[in-house]
Structure formats: C-alpha cells, structure tokens
C-alpha cells in the first residue's frame, strides 16, 4: 500500500501538501523517526539543505532514511539530501549564484510538455551514470532526474499549480 509523507522540519512542505491535495493524495507530515516507519513515499521539500541535513541527524532520522529505501522525491535542497542518501549524481550548490540569479523558465522534456521550472538559488546536477533517467533539461543541463527510488528536481514544482511531476512520483514502485 502506498503511504506518502512530507518531511516537515523546514522549508516548502506546505506547498507540497497543497499539490498532493490537488491530486487527492493523502499524506502525513513527517517530523520524527516514528513518522518514517509507516510510509513508502517521502517528499523532501525545498529549504536550506545544510539546515535540513543537520536536523535529520539530530532527530536521529538520517540512519533510517539511509537504510529504508523509501521512494524519495527531493526538490532543490531535497535533491542535495537525496544525493547524500545514495543518488549517484554530482551536485553543485547555488550554482547559478545568489538570489538575483533566480529565474523561471520553460524546460525541455519529452514527458512533461511545457513544464515551467522555478529555480531559486538553485543547484546544478551533473549526471554521468548512464542508468539515470533524465526527465527534463534546461539549457542542456539535467534538472529533473530519476534513479530507482529517487526522483530529484533542481527547481521547485511545488511552487506552481502544475501537478504532473508529483503525479509521476506517486507512480514510482507503488504497487
């Protein structure tokens, strides 16, 4: 049975929740180790990755996340955490620069036509592993990628009304 959680320590968790509501998908807010026990899918929101990582360690959740092989969707800061949890890509933090370099643009994607990406102090992904699926690019750089149980975006799908990327995440290993 698919059970969805949203990591709700810091960042844009309320925005992710709104999208799941639009998809009529039930969810819980994950704020402790116990909350991780009963879920199959976890969203790690945008926020500050340094902050989120420290909190996961301090709340004793990091080990659980590493061992439990949940399906994880990480956006922006969440993507950085996915890489630390085992996703095989390289990430350059704040790669575009400070806030003035933040932007919104249409992405190149075969599956998600006309998808808009909101990039805020965004990281850049570098993908070498051939087994990783690149689902969207912006100016040749991968911005939405999937490997096994991980789906990561360097932008913030949770800030727009478009629910397609979240809907895709919910189909991952969810029989």
């Amino acid at each position: 049975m698919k059970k969805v959680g949203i990591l709700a320590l810091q960042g844009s968790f309320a925005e992710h929740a709104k999208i799941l509501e639009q998809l009529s998908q039930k969810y819980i807010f994950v704020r402790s180790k116990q909350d991780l026990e009963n879920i199959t899918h976890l969203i790690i929101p945008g926020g500050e990755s340094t902050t989120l990582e420290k909190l996961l360690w301090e709340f004793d959740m990091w080990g659980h996340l590493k061992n439990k092989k949940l399906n994880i969707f990480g956006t922006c800061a969440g993507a950085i955490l996915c890489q630390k949890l085992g996703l095989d890509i390289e990430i350059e933090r704040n790669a575009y620069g400070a806030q003035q370099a933040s932007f919104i643009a249409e992405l190149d994607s075969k599956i998600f036509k006309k998808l808009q990406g909101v990039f805020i102090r965004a990281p850049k992904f570098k993908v070498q592993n051939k087994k990783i699926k690149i689902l969207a690019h912006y100016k040749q750089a991968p911005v939405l990628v999937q490997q096994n149980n991980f789906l990561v975006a360097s932008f913030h799908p949770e800030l727009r009304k478009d629910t397609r990327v979240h809907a895709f995440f919910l189909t991952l290993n969810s029989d």
Partner: protein
Amino acid sequence: MEKNTFELKSGLAQMLKGGVIMDVMNVEQAKIAENSGAVAVMALERIPSLIREQGGVSRMTDPKLLKEIKKAVSIPVMAKVRIGHFVEAQILEALDIDFIDESEVLTMADEQFHVMKDDFKLPFVCGARNLGEALRRIEEGAAMIRTKGEAGTGNIVEAVRHLRQIQSEVHDLSTRNLSSKAKEYRVSKEIISWVLKNKRLPVVTFVAGGIATPADAAMMMQMGAEGVFVGSGIFASSNPEVRAKAIVQATMNYDKPEILAKVSENLGSAMSGQEINELAVKFAEREAA
C-alpha cells in the same frame, strides 16, 4: 525567462519557512549560525542590544563585512537598510546579497516614504505592528513580513502583541467592512479581499523582536508564526553556540514540550533583557507617514 519577479522573491521566503534567521556581526558568528542550523544570517555591525546601549545613528553595514560573510557561508545572507533609504538598498543590491530588511532597528532616513520595494530586484522583508502596516509594506513590494517586536530587549511581549494584533485584525475583516478597512489601512480593496478570503497575510510571516530563549521561539511558532528572527538573543547570551542550536531545535519541535525541556537545559544565561516601559527609544514606533 522571468527574473526578479514577485513569485521568485516570495519563493525564497517560502524556502525559509520553519527556520531561524540569526543576526551576526562577523564571519565567526556567521559560521556559528550556519553550523547551528540557521536558514539565513542577517549581517550587521551592531546587534540591536548594542545599538540601544551605544546610541548614535545606525546605518547600513560596511560592504566589506557583507562580502566577507557572503563568502563564508552558503545559506542566504540578509542585510538591513534604514527605513526609506533607497540608496542603501541600491548598494546592497549591487553587492548581490540575497534579501534586504528595511528595518526600524536602524535610524530612519525618511519620515515620509518607505523604499519602493517593487523597484528592486532583491526581495525585501519589513517589520509590522498591525495588519495595516503589514499590508502597506506588501503593496510597496515587501515579499516577507516580520513582527517588529522590540528588538534588543530580550523581551517578547511586543512581538506577541504584534502577532496577535495582526491575527485579530485578519479575523475581524468581513465583506461588510472591506471598503472602510481599505481606507483605514490606506491599501487597495484587492489586497483586503485576498486577506479576507485566505485568512492570512499574502506573504510569509515571521516573528522578530525580543526572542531570547528556545521557549520564546516555540511559543511564537505555536501562535502561528512561520519562522523566527533572533537578533541579540544569541550573540548577547553567555553561550551563543549552544543557545543557537537550542533555538533552532525548539523552532522545529515547537509543539513537543519534552523536546523543548531537553533543549532548554543548561544554556548558560540568556541576554539580560529590559522592560518595555523603561526603554529610551521604541524602535517599533518607527514608520514613515
């Protein structure tokens, strides 16, 4: 491609939600803040308690210090400009920091006008004591609001008053008083209808001004704040490193008293603090006409 739109400005504020933003005066403090889990740092030459103690005109921070701090940390860097001082804001924008606080903690530069924040590429946060003040700032382009509280006092009574005031005024809006409220608050009917419909401010709302302990931070979060600014509370205390961590933990675990009890233990002494009626200057009263 869109750049510097309101969506991007308020988007950054959305990413800071649930977090603690700490005042820092040098690189070492900025690193302590980052290591403690702060979501952003506010770089300034004197924390509010020192401004109170030393007096004099206080202004935008030296760009050299801002550059050093920007280089030292990967979290967003904020800095303050005086109310209405649009050239200080232009300078901060040229320095490419991440967020500007048009702040009553600094001496006012213009008693008539606030900075027209829509003219800038960077997002602004502004202080407010009540709904009208918050909405005026938002219509000028603020992408984030914080309570004013009374900075540098270590006393949260004003921050509590301001948050309650905003909430009760949001609650009191109705379709019947929409026009009169727009007039009273000197804002558009559109923004009032938005607030009436959504029962909240249109931008992320933090608290600031007097937060000194983990319990203070947690109380504000339980009351509905979306995050916390801690000014003097950390670096005017006896053990900033431990206190900074404890306040971050408390902000995330605001509704778990067992954890609050644990993180409140053995923090050393908090900043000494002041009664509001004994203050020589009330920062919160600073608003351009």
